[in-house]
C-alpha cells in the first residue's frame, strides 16, 4: 500500500482523483462535440487530438480512483453510472461550447491551470499520481501551446475576432476562480504531499494567462465574483444534459457489454 493512503483516507484520495478525472472527462466530451463542425479541417483534426488526450487521461485518473475506492468500480463505471451530484469537475469545463472563440478561451484558461497543476503533481508523494501527471503533462504542454497561440492570434486578429474573444473571456472569467479555492479535501491532500494547495497555483497561472492576454490585446476582466460548486457536486444545468447523452446507453441497457 502506498504511503499516501496512510496519510489520507481512501475517500479523500478518491475525491481528489475524481476531481482530476471528471475535469478531463467533461472537457473531453465538450471538445469532442466539435468533431465534424470546426471552422476548418486542420482545426477539426487538432481538436480531436485534444479530446483524445483528455479521454485517455480520464481513463487513468478514474481508473486509479476506482482502484483506490476499492469497491470494484472501473473508470467506465465511474464515468457512465454516477449521477450528476457525484461528479467533481469544475463548472468551467461544463460551460457550453458557444462559438469557436468561447471554446478556445475555455480551453486556454483550463490548459493554463492544468499545466501548472500537473507540473506540481509530477512531484506527488503518491507515485501513481506522479506517473499519470508526467504522462499527461506532455500532452497538456502542447494543448497550452496551441490554445495560447490561438488566443493571441484571435485577440490580435480582426475587430470582430477581438470582440468575440473579449466577450468569451468576460463570460468565462468568473468560472475560473473555483479551480483555486481549497476545501478540506484539498488541505488534507496537500498536507499529505499528494497535490499542491490549489491557491498556491494561482500566481503561476496568472503569469501564464497574463502574458498571453496581454499579447492578445485582451483586457483582464475586473469582476471578482466566483461561480463555484462543481468540485462539491453542485453543478450547472448543463451537466445534466451532458450526462443524458454520455450515459444513455449504459443506463438504458444495464449490464450489457459493448
Amino acid at each position: 500500500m502506498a504511503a499516501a493512503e496512510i496519510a489520507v483516507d481512501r475517500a479523500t484520495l478518491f475525491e481528489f482523483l475524481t476531481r482530476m478525472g471528471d475535469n478531463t472527462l467533461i472537457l473531453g466530451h465538450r471538445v469532442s462535440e466539435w468533431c465534424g463542425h470546426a471552422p476548418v479541417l486542420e482545426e477539426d483534426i487538432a481538436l480531436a487530438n485534444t479530446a483524445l488526450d483528455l479521454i485517455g487521461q480520464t481513463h487513468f485518473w478514474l481508473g486509479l480512483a476506482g482502484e483506490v475506492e476499492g469497491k470494484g468500480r472501473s473508470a467506465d463505471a465511474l464515468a457512465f453510472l454516477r449521477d450528476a451530484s457525484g461528479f467533481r469537475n469544475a463548472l468551467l469545463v461544463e460551460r457550453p461550447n458557444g462559438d469557436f472563440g468561447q471554446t478556445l478561451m475555455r480551453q486556454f484558461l483550463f490548459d493554463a491551470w492544468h499545466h501548472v497543476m500537473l507540473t506540481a503533481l509530477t512531484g506527488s508523494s503518491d507515485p501513481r499520481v506522479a506517473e499519470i501527471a508526467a504522462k499527461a503533462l506532455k500532452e497538456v504542454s502542447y494543448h497550452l501551446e496551441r490554445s495560447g497561440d490561438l488566443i493571441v492570434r484571435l485577440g490580435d486578429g480582426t475587430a470582430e475576432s477581438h470582440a468575440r474573444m473579449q466577450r468569451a473571456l468576460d463570460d468565462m472569467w468568473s468560472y475560473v476562480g473555483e479551480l483555486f479555492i481549497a476545501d478540506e479535501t484539498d488541505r488534507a491532500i496537500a498536507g499529505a504531499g499528494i497535490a499542491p494547495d490549489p491557491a498556491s497555483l494561482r500566481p503561476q497561472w496568472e503569469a501564464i494567462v497574463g502574458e498571453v492576454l496581454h499579447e492578445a490585446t485582451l483586457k483582464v476582466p475586473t469582476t471578482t465574483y466566483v461561480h463555484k460548486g462543481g468540485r462539491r457536486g453542485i453543478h450547472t444545468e448543463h451537466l445534466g444534459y451532458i450526462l443524458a447523452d454520455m450515459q444513455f446507453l449504459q443506463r438504458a441497457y444495464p449490464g450489457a457489454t459493448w
Partner: protein
Amino acid sequence: MYAQLVKSEGKKSAEEMSPEERAFQDRVDRGEKIEPKEWMPEGYRKTLIRQIGQHAHSEIVGQLPEGNWITRAPTLERKAILLAKVQDEAGHGLYLYCAAETLGISRDQLLDKLHDGSMKYSSIFNYPTLTWADIGAVGWLVDGAAIMNQVPLQKTSFGPYSRAMIRICKEESFHQRQGYDIMMKMAQGTPEQKAMAQDALNRFWSPALMMFGPSDKESVHSAQSMAWKIKIDTNDELRQKFVDQTVPQAEYLGLSIPDPNLKWNEEKKGYDFSEPDWTEFFEVIAGNGPCNRERLGARVKAWEDGAWFRDALVAHAEKDAARRAAARVAAE
C-alpha cells in the same frame, strides 16, 4: 462508391486522339504516373477534379453520421476509438482536397461547390445512424465497401491521387475492423443488442450496395475513366466482390442479410442477390434522402460560422509579417 456517377467524356479511339493524347495514353498504359504539371487531356483533369472532389466531400460529410454518436459512445474506449476514426476521416478529406488542388482548383472553391450543391458526396451519408449498432454497421459495411474501391485506386494513374489513396488505405485498415468488432459485441450481447444489430444490417444493406453506383457496363464515362486508370473495376464487379465477402461475415455474426433472393451460385462462384432500389438511389442523389438537408446544412453552418475565425488568423498573420518586416528595417 465515395465517388458515384462521375461524368467523364466518351472514350476516344486511337485514331481520334491527337498525338499528345496518344502519347499520354501510352504513358498510362505503361503504368507511368501522371504528375500535376505534366501535360494531360483537359477531360482527364476535369474528371479527376470531379472524382477526387466528390471523394473528399464524402469523407467530411461522412464525419457527421458517426460523429453523431461520439458523445453517446458506451465506454471510454469506444469513445476514443470512434473519435479517432472520425478524425481520420477529416484527415482523409484533407489529403484528398490537397490532391485535387494540384489540378488547379483550390480547396475553398471545392467547398463552395459542395455547399451550393453543384458537387455531390456519397449517397450513403444521407442515411441516419439511429442506434449504436449503426456505428458498427457503418464501419463494417460502409468502410468495407469503400475499401473495395480504394485499394485498387492506389494504382490509379494520377500521382497525387495514388499517393493519397496509399496513405488512406494504410490508415483505414482499422476502420472496418472496429465496426465489425462493435457488431460482434452486439450480436453476441443481450436480445435487445442483437435486435439492434439485425435492424442496423436491415437498414444499411441496400444503401451499402448502392454505394457502388448503378451498373456501368455500358457507360461511356466509365470506359474512358478505366482507360485513363482513374477507375479500376466496374461497379458491378466491386458490388459482387463486396457481397461475396460480406455474406460469410454476416453468417458468423448470426445475422441474416435482408434479401430473400440471396443465394450462392455455384456456376459463377458468387452470390446472386437483388438489385437495390435505384429509384431510391436517384432520389437520394437528387437531395431527397432522409438526411440530405441536415448533412449539408451542418457543413454549411460550420463553414459560415467559422468564417470569422479563418479571417482573423489571416489578419493576424499579415499583421505579424508586417511587424517583422518593420523590425528588420529598423534594425538596419
